[in-house]
């Protein structure tokens, strides 16, 4: 077990890479969730069709296949991405498709009277979404977004297969150099668990502070 301490700097670098991948792809996924989710509610048929194609494509295929496609096939078509960019795009686009369904579902579940009220107040479409529908939909999105964030963090482990030096990659290096198996893998499992638990705490905190600010109770907030 002492031998593994020599690899502490490498493990810290790996953990940092995992965190960076998670944060950057989470931001990308969040943006995509809103763009695609709201596009699915658009009045324009072509926008809706495009958003649905995106959704079915990224939700219907495997994340690993998407990643390999971006890393190995896109360069052949003249678009070369660095491993980090390919990893972030694959993770972000993949989880963005799941997130868009969360956004669509939450916005749709805001009561019909709210739509009618904004029409009665002569709000534009932008005003209706910005001031009426989205603010009421956001609290409902937090718990499912929290679950997706964990899925995203776990997905970053797959980027080790396109040569990104994240935690999983570092564990493989340690295994190759020392022939230890139990220690590196058990250790990174614990680190992944800790990162995930921080993320769970973070979403719980956001859910609670929104609930407190707006004096509402949220369905599905994790029991802690």
């Amino acid at each position, binding site marked *: 077990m002492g031998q593994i301490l020599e690899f502490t700097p490498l493990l810290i670098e790996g953990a940092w890479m995992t965190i960076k991948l998670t944060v950057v792809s989470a931001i990308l996924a969040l943006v995509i969730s809103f763009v695609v989710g709201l596009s699915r509610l658009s009045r324009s048929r072509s926008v809706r069709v495009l958003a649905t194609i995106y959704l*079915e494509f990224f939700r219907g295929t495997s994340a690993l296949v998407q990643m390999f496609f971006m890393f190995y096939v896109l360069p052949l078509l003249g678009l070369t991405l660095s491993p980090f960019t390919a990893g972030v795009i694959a993770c972000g686009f993949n989880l963005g498709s799941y997130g868009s369904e969360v956004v669509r579902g939450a916005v749709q579940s805001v009561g019909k009277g709210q739509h009618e009220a904004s029409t009665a107040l002569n709000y534009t479409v932008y005003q209706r979404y910005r001031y009426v529908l989205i603010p009421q939909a956001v609290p409902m999105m937090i718990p499912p977004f929290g679950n997706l964030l964990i899925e995203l963090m776990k997905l970053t482990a797959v980027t080790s297969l396109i040569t990104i030096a994240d*935690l999983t990659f570092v564990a493989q290096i340690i295994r190759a150099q020392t022939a230890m198996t139990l220690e590196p*893998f058990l250790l990174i*499992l614990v680190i992944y668990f800790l990162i995930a638990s921080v993320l769970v705490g973070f979403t719980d905190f956001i859910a609670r502070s929104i609930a407190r600010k707006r004096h509402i109770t949220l369905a599905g907030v994790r029991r802690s």
Partner: protein
Amino acid sequence: MNWSWTVAADVLPLLLGGLVVTVEATIMGAAVAYVLGLFLAIMKRSQNRPLALTVYWMSEFIRRTPLLVQLYFLFYVLPDLGLFLSPLAAGVIGLGLHFSTYTSEVFRAGIDNVPKGQWEASRSLNYNPWQTWRYVILPQAIPPMIPPLANYLITMFKETPLLAAITVIELFNAANIYSNSYYKYLEPMTLVGLLFLLVSIPAAYLAMRLERKYTVRR
């Protein structure tokens, strides 16, 4: 870089062979996930607090860590401890174990959602536990579980390419091996993507139909 139909025709039989392995792994993994998930759900509901808490945190641990690392763990660590598994067996166990923590939540919610009055009614009818579960609880608990369990089947199908990392030659790995030996990436990878869509879109459609059929409105 142009699409070559010769390469596509060349690789397609290999891919279809891989697809068979993918489907096998999915079905066996799902069987493990469903059976184990049911046991986990029952243990999480146990009156025995230490048992319930241990099972809860064990499944949280599995749920919050990546499947890929769990597969490596099964594949590299168990042989060192004297337990030799074939790659496919390790993959099926990993897949089943990982998703059992998800299915157990489905089972738990399904059982919890049966109204309390139903338990009381069975007691007042003097039903024994077997009769209570068989004739009262399960017939009400199972239908709403079917759509989410079907969705997890589709999710597991899409996770099987990870088995390539532990040398299982399933759909994705079949393409990858071909790509690496002939240096052709465009056709194999595109076909893999299409084959996934070919299975998962109809499957998602069926799952949606199931959802309409079994959603209980109270």
